[in-house]
């Protein structure tokens, strides 16, 4: 039921280096903005093609793409409304480029976006600084989609913008350890062969978390996830609070699916948090599972209350209440999906114990041998968990994190700073200060050679 159509005839090169895949549904104006931004790329237009996967469009998206005067090869694929995952897979199947670049239809690429992704893959393949020592073909580039608010701007939209920016800030930190939740398909590049090898996006996920599910498989296959900070795109967000609650409901459903596909993740999914909570949180969950009709009515009334809070600038009350309503909708989604299997969330999470996941690899590291040695060792073993020591004295333990990439040497220093700072100071500094004071030396505990070491 789909049609493929090349509106510019044969492109100048038989195989373009990059194929940009844009799934879209009824967002003609926004899509045209994306297509226009792609026409302003610093990357040569003859070296990339663009495939628009129009999925169930009832506006004039197809006609607009037909009319669009693109300097690059532009193709249109039409689908009957099969979901974003299917649309992306279909676009990828039609792609001729060696590198796939997924861009959402509400995302406006900066002029250097394609070049930055291509460069990141080249650098990683060549084993450049900070990436890897061996040549790799399983690199995945994640670019930032910096939020731009359009439409009504209120407390919710501002919070959402802040959340997105913090997410990318986290990814940008040197030595960030990626998890499946860092894989976001709005601005994502991956080798076409690699994508096919992994089987593409899981089409059972309808419009929520299909990128995270793909992320789980990427992490399991030990792909090289790279944050491409220079591949900036602007994400034009036009989302109201009500619609966002319905998205949260979809996320609840998607999390159950995720737990079914990857049982080892169940303990870290949001549905595993707060299962023994009392009060409002428990009420939310019970309402969603046992009395959804009443629950829907109550949160509708509370939704009006939210507007009052916002009008009176009662920010804290607004935050508490909107968080509660969001939790309700999340549980509603979970209940809808779990209801089919007849089990409750507690049983669902507990059933992960016999999931049969491979035994995590743990590594003992003594920091007294030097940080460089420790980093090399971690790169060699690629453990899931760490036990840290200094001259045999335990500093701390880093347990395995389901859904997180195996540890690399570059994770160590930020990890020590952020997670084990207090313990390290206790072990290193205090021992050194006391040693020097006892030896009757200079009273300073902070000596340049030690710091330079």
């Amino acid at each position, binding site marked *: 039921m789909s049609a493929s159509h090349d509106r510019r005839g044969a492109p100048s090169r038989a195989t373009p280096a990059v194929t940009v895949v844009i799934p879209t549904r009824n967002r003609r104006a926004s899509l045209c903005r994306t297509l226009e931004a792609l026409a302003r790329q610093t990357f040569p237009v003859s070296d990339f093609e663009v495939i628009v996967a129009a999925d169930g469009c009832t506006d004039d998206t197809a006609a607009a793409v037909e009319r669009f005067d693109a300097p690059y090869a532009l193709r249109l694929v039409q689908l009957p409304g099969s979901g974003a995952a299917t649309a992306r897979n279909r676009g990828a199947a039609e792609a001729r480029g060696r590198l796939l670049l997924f861009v959402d239809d509400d995302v406006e690429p900066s002029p250097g976006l394609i070049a930055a992704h291509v460069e990141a893959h080249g650098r990683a393949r060549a084993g450049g600084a900070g990436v890897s020592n061996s040549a790799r073909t399983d690199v995945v580039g994640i670019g930032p989609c*910096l939020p731009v608010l359009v439409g009504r701007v209120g*407390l919710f*939209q*501002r*919070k959402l*913008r*802040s959340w997105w*920016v913090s997410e990318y*800030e986290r990814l*940008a930190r*040197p030595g960030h350890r990626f998890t499946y939740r860092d894989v976001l398909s709005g601005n994502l590049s991956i080798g076409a062969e690699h994508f096919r090898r992994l089987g593409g996006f899981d089409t059972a996920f309808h419009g929520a978390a299909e990128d995270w599910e793909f992320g789980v498989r990427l992490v399991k296959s030990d792909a090289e996830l790279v944050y491409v900070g220079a591949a900036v795109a602007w994400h034009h967000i036009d989302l109201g609070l009500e619609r966002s609650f319905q998205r949260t409901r979809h996320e609840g459903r998607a999390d159950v699916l995720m737990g079914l596909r990857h049982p080892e993740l169940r303990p870290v999914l949001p549905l595993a948090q707060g299962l023994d909570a009392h009060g409002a949180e428990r009420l939310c969950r019970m309402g969603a599972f046992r009395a959804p009709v009443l629950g829907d009515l109550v949160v509708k009334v509370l939704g009006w209350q939210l507007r009052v809070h916002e009008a*009176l*600038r009662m*920010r*804290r009350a607004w935050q508490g209440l909107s968080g509660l309503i969001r939790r309700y909708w999340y549980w509603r989604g979970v209940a809808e999906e779990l209801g089919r299997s007849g089990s409750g969330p507690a049983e669902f999470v507990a059933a992960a114990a016999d999931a049969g996941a491979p035994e995590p690899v743990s590594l003992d590291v003594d920091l007294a041998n030097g*940080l460089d040695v420790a980093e090399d060792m971690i790169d060699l073993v690629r453990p899931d968990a760490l036990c840290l020591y200094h001259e045999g004295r335990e500093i701390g333990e880093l347990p395995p994190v389901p859904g997180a990439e195996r540890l690399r040497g570059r994770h160590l*220093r*930020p990890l*020590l*700073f952020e997670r084990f*700072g207090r313990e*390290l*100071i206790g072990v*290193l*500094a205090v021992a050194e*200060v006391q040693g020097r004071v006892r030896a009757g030396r200079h*009273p*300073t*505990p*902070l*000596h*340049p050679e*030690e*710091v330079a*070491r």
Partner: protein
Amino acid sequence: MATAVVEVELLDPPARIGGLDGYAAALVLARLGGRPVGQATLPVVEGSVDVGRVHEAIVTDSNRPLWDRWLQLRLGIPDPEPAVEKATVAVCTRDRPDDLRRCLDALYPYLEAGHELLVVDNRPSTRETERVVAMYDGVRYVREDRQGLSAAGNRAFREASHEVVAFADDDTVPDPGWLPALLRNFSDPLVLCVTGLTMPLELETEAQEWFERYSPFGRGFERVVLDGTQMNPLASWRAGAGANMAFRRSAVDRVGPFEEVLGSGTPARSGGDHEYFARILAAGYRIVYEPAALSWHRHRRTWEELRRTVYGYGVGVYASWTHELVVGREFGVLKMACGWLIRDQLPALVRSLLRRPGRVPLDLLLAELRGCVAGPWAYLASRRVLPMTGGWP
């Protein structure tokens, strides 16, 4: 007797800090690897301070900024690169040529490093400022005849050649690392403003000592990111002081310019900076307090000047709160005003009346309270004579 202001680098400290004859005490600023990490006021004995005492006071288990910095150096984690390479440094001034000269001396190396230096002369009564600026080759001079520090700041935004505009008060002496430390924090696109640590340049008179005790500009040694979506935006005093701050120029497009009804040089006397901080936060953006961006401020020397300044702060706080209430419909200011009165002002007044040790001089407290009472009226007076420029998100 006066208090000396001295610095010590903990990586390479002298055994004693000498040459302090004539001082009873010293305010010691401790650095580690160049970064300010703590301060202590210690007695001066025979003209010097024992560094061992500095250690006792600053190298404590609970000094988190110190140990964070130590660990950063020890683990070899580099500082982030400045996200912005070039900036405009603006000094808004009015009839203070001597202070300005000292400030420009400190800032001039930035001009040589390729940044822009801009002096905005606000309604000058003489041409002395223009003559001072002419002595510094390459420094731009702009005269702004609209009244008030906020109007001068807005002029700086319009005149600046770069996206980031750092403001230094004319009575400050920025540290050599000041500007790079401010600029490091602009990599986050939601950060519209970065403020720095302001320490006293001198504590030679009782008035200066009391200013530092009662109304210090510093907000500690820990870097803080204030996110307007995570906190009460009206608590903008946490951001620091207008004597040492930098903005993205695009803040003007996103949240509007400085509110010209408020600030020094208007009937509202002060508060333009804190209202702007609050507006940035209320619009959901971020402000970073970066203590590595160190600047030294010359506090007012005479008691009369101090009392006027404290009165002006009282007026400014209540004027900006009135603005936030009237224009921004921020009813939370009523709660804040009550909180300040009940938790801080009244207890201080009682302690002062009972002549308890460590009390704040009564005339300062009364000056502040009189300022608070006058604030709302001053705001209305300001609105009558000046156009409103800022608005509220």
